[in-house]
């Protein structure tokens, strides 16, 4: 039992290390390939006309005068030793920048994921107990919701609920609940559409299974059977994909934070990429990637709890 847990933990840590290495490497070389000189981030941004002494001083201070391989190895070493270095543009530790922006983005992603689940489960329940044509309509809504782009949905929501109705502010900062509404909905709707479709298909499968048929034969109501039996099977694929969904929420944050003028990791990443602020980009992507690893681990635990067939004995049975 303990061996099982240890092996599980080691596998997770191993994958985290692998992810860290891949992120640092890909980001480092991708930013180089995108053109532009990171030195300019230090000297006021792209197109800097700073003098030769200033350029030389900046390169020396940040080690940008060393061969590319040396810079890469330095960067790797720093990542391994949990030192994210200093931002070129902001001249402060990357860790501090991330600490500033992380909470806002995580709050947004977690609230959006929760809201997406509420939406998806609500629609699934409504569909299975509604008339066929309503169910068909709701399925159509799910399909559209799953593919709607964030920037479009966000713009429409602002126009409707901020400009026209004046219910919610167009911009938001921090954890102000009113300001959190529109960004949350914008992020949650596509994920809800996706999760809803998944729940749908597997619930339909479960509803047709002998255990559901017999539960109904025993006199269980349609909704009761759905919630007590079918959904438990039906949500499994959606739970597995929630890890992926969380990752997509973090990447969606780049668009949503920019759109709603909301501070966060996504905007930090965008600005840093545009100015070729290599340490910040690596730091931000690393945090997102590691968050993804952690969420996948949590999802793994939940899956084992919902479906005891493949579980280790440590799992809690719901």
């Amino acid at each position, binding site marked *: 039992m303990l061996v099982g847990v240890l092996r599980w933990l080691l596998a997770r840590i191993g994958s985290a290390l692998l992810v860290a290495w891949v992120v640092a490497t890909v980001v480092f070389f991708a930013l180089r390939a*995108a*053109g*532009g*000189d990171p*030195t*300019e*981030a*230090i*000297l*006021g*941004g*792209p*197109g*800097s*006309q*700073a*003098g*030769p*002494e*200033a*350029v*030389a*001083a*900046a390169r020396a201070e940040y080690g940008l005068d060393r061969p590319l391989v040396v810079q890469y190895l330095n960067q790797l070493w720093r990542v391994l030793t949990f030192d994210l270095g200093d931002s070129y*543009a*902001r*001249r*402060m530790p990357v860790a501090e*920048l991330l600490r*500033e*922006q992380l909470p806002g983005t995580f709050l947004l992603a977690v609230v959006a994921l929760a809201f997406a689940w509420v939406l998806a489960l609500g629609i699934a329940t409504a569909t299975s107990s509604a008339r066929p044509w309503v169910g068909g309509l709701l399925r159509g809504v799910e399909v559209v919701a799953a593919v709607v782009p964030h920037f479009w949905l966000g*713009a429409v929501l*602002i*126009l409707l609920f*901020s*400009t026209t109705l*004046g219910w919610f*502010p*167009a*911009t938001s*900062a*921090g954890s102000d609940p009113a300001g959190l509404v529109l960004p949350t909905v914008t992020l949650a709707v596509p994920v809800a559409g996706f999760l809803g479709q998944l729940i749908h298909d597997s619930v339909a499968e479960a509803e047709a299974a002998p255990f559901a048929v017999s539960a109904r034969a025993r006199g269980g109501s349609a909704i009761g059977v759905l919630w007590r039996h079918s959904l438990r099977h039906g949500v499994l694929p959606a739970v597995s994909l929630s890890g992926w969904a969380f990752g997509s929420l973090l990447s969606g944050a780049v668009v949503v934070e*920019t*759109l*709603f*003028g909301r*501070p*966060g990791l996504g*905007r*930090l990443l965008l*600005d840093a*990429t*545009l*100015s*070729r602020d290599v340490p910040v980009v690596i730091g931000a992507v690393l945090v997102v990637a590691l968050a993804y690893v952690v969420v996948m681990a949590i999802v793994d635990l939940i899956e084992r709890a919902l479906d005891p067939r493949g579980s280790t004995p440590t799992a809690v049975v719901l």
Partner: protein
Amino acid sequence: MARQSLVALALAPVLLVAACSGGSTDSASPQDGGTLTYATGDAEPTCLDPHVGGNYPQALISTQYLEPLVGRAADGTILPWLARDWQVSDDGLTWDFTLADGVTFTDGTPFDADAVRVNIEHLQDPDTGSSTGYLAVQKVASVEAVDATHARFHLTEPDSALLESLSQQWTAIESPTGIERGTDANCAAPVGTGPFVVESWTPQQQVELVRNDDYAGLDPEADHDGAAYLDRIVWRFIPDAATRYAALRSGEVQMIDNPQPDAVKAAGQGGDITLIDAPRPGASNRIELNAAQAPFDDIRVREAFVRAADVDAGIETLFAGTVQRSSSALSSVEPDVYSDPDLFTADLDRANDLLDQAGWTERDADGYRTKDGARLTVRFPVSTNQSVAAEQSLFEQIQAGAKQAGFDVVLTPLDLSGWYAALGAHEYEAVSAPYTKVGPDVLRILYHSDGTVPAPSGYFANHAQLKDPALDDLLDRAVATADPDERADLYQQAQTIILDSYTVLPLYDQLNRFLVRDAEGVRTLNTVSTPTFLDARVLS
């Protein structure tokens, strides 16, 4: 400290009553005090000190807390500001500035000649990493503090653009005590003599500015004496243009910059939103054709491109009639601007004739002209940071127009770093690169052959790759002369050469527009066209 808070406590009821009575009068009357929220779409500065680097977003915000040595009137006349008077020696190498007396920075440090010296040295110190301000004071060898109110500038060569350079926000004067704190602290909250003081900066969200109660009132165009009316300014960063406009309409903010053409048009049609249109000085927005390499090393091919591109129709539709076509290399706010519309009228027949003459006579299967098997290709990297959506659409219309004459225009959208990299590698035949500077000396930066030599970062400003000794001579003489009439005449001649070379296709002034709602008294400086809130009041 303790006494101050007691006073504040004692005053609190009075202030409350004042606030209430202010609110009970006319529904939209200007009131003293209050907060104005400004939302900017420009990139958030990485440093609030415009000496470091030196871009437009820094100029915008620093106008609220830093002041320059001199100002500028709408007609280009230089006005006294922190410097009250100045005199230049006959050889143009020594400038004597008489400074305002009794002015203190908001940290209590006195403003004096030594402060001016420290600021120029700060700009020239490589560790500061200055780009724009460093260029502006490049000809200053040293500053000598003669006495407290007299600063003497020693120049390496005459510079008729010195006052214009010193009027820019990038060379504004900061507290020496503030500078001494080091770059990190000074970037977070630079200390100046302006009407407001930086209180706090929440990255990606906002900068909070509070009124400087002891403001000396030196702004030459202020409409009242003493401190600003507003208690504070909240300076928010909202990158998306539609969101900014929505925030303005819902009352979350009172002023926005970089509005979209439809919002500008709506403001022009009445309603409670007013438009401030303040074109930036320096160069116009224009497309430059790279004369250093084929096919634009042939002036006939350059003129053919200019004639084939039907710019007027595109501007009219894409900017909803809110933008004026330019036919100048300089901004229309420059007193020395020279225009020649005839050079830029669309004429497809003439374009075709010129290309035939230049030997681009064959057409390939796609309808593009060829010569010796090579296609008539124009690589056009587009900066998605600098070109607004309407401008990018305009480039697509130009692409379509040029295709009719047989040009294959390849538009490549790039982020700012990638775009500068493409220019630095000469991977362009056409490009639109804005350049803001006070005064016609911008022509020397953009079109003097010196501008083809890259800076250490690889950047060069002369994208047209003009290397004309006659033009160089005019620009050199213009910057050296002390005679304003001669200077104006030399810049006229220079502009004639530039426009006649067909390396420049002017579009319009650099757009710099603001929308205001529920506030009045906002005006823009005639230097780099940044708004000041000294006279601003919010309407209750």
